[in-house]
């Protein structure tokens, strides 16, 4: 019995960015410690669907294979997550694979997450230290704060939190939780803090922070356990203060 155990997959496929999606079923021989990516590789090796017909291999994205790059995210049995760490033994069968439809689908399970990278640019999620001469070492960061900031820095721009958010969709231009939390990270850095107001003003723009409706799905879904809703609430406080400063003026820079 154990020798001919199989695994059943139902994959939502789409041939081009504009064509209609359809489902295709695959039955694969079970192997120990199989994960969703190794199963997809198996399909690539032998692209035959459950009806025994030859088909085109499923396309998907991947890179690190250890849940640090975020590229392999897809919706597995209804929940967005990384396919490289989705163990077949822990999933209910048939295993349903769908692309994260919040993003434009390129093909099959492959999506285009550019909007997230654009958002990071928009909120200036970096610390500007480039210049024409050496500025010397920056202020030091307390160790406890460094450890706290490290948690926020684990974000891999995977897009799971955007997929889970009811306010990120085609009807709204909300940038989503991930780039907001990055603002908190860079504003907490002793050097990054020098550009705090700029980043706050970026997220006070259209499609920014106030689009959050507190469904808090993001914090439940983030594979890195990033305290997204705490970041958002903290930024709400910071932007409240910033808005007062902007309106009434302030003698503090």
């Amino acid at each position: 019995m154990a020798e001919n155990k199989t695994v059943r997959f139902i994959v939502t496929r789409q041939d081009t960015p504009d064509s209609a999606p359809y489902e295709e079923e695959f039955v694969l021989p079970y192997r120990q410690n199989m994960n969703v990516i190794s199963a997809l590789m198996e399909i690539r090796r032998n692209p035959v669907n459950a009806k025994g017909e030859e088909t085109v291999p499923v396309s998907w994205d991947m890179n690190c294979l250890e849940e640090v790059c975020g590229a392999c995210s897809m919706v597995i049995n209804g929940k967005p997550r990384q396919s490289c760490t989705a163990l077949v033994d822990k999933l209910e069968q048939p295993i349903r694979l769908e692309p994260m439809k919040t993003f434009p689908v390129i093909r099959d399970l492959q999506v285009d997450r550019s909007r997230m990278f654009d958002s990071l640019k928009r909120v200036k999620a970096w610390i500007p230290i480039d210049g024409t001469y050496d500025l010397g070492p920056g202020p030091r960061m307390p160790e406890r704060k460094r450890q706290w900031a490290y948690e926020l820095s684990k974000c891999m721009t995977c897009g799971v939190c955007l997929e889970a958010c009811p306010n990120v969709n085609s009807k709204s231009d909300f940038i989503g939780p991930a780039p907001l939390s990055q603002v908190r990270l860079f504003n907490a850095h002793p050097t990054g803090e020098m550009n705090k107001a700029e980043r706050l003003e970026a997220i006070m723009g259209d499609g920014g922070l106030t689009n959050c409706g507190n469904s808090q799905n993001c914090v439940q879904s983030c594979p890195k356990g990033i305290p997204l809703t705490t970041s958002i609430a903290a930024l709400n406080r910071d932007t409240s203060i910033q808005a007062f400063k902007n309106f009434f003026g302030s003698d503090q820079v």
Partner: protein
Amino acid sequence: MARNQEFLWRRLHSLLGVIPVGLFLVQHLVINHFATQGPEAFNNAAHFMEGLPFRIFLEVFVIYLPLLFHAIYGIYIAFTAKNNTSRYGYFRNWMFMLQRITGIITLVFIAWHVWETRIAAAFGAEVNFNMMADILASPFMFIFYVVGVLSAIFHFANGLWSFLVSWGITVSPRSQVISTYVTIGIFVVLSVIGIRALVAFI
């Protein structure tokens, strides 16, 4: 709409929902509660409110304009969400959806309620205990009022929770849990007050 006005509109929406609209709701429910002490007590309380100086200005600036803005912008917010409680059945996600549903129900209810009472009054009807007793004598209207009142109270209580987050008052997860309990308490207390008043009319 001009660019980058959204922050202002959203924050205004959040603020107006509590001050003055939320406070008005509480005051209205408390006045209604006089009905439990009999028609006379209710009529006196209602007449006192009617007799407030500058009544029309109070109504316009404390009730109509803020409520209208909150309602119209709220419809826009409600319809830009794509609810997903079937996939993500978390408590807060349910509250998120219920906030939008109760908002719409409350809007329908208030529109009807204003038509039936305040607009009727402008055409000469007298708003008093008997008027409400007549309306609530119909079982259908009674249920409609119960649903409407509960929706409005839920929308206020849960809205107060998100108000605290939106203005950055409750930031830590613990403070948000505590405010969840506090707002549930507010919901229960106001619901008892509201339902008791409704029942008093029948």
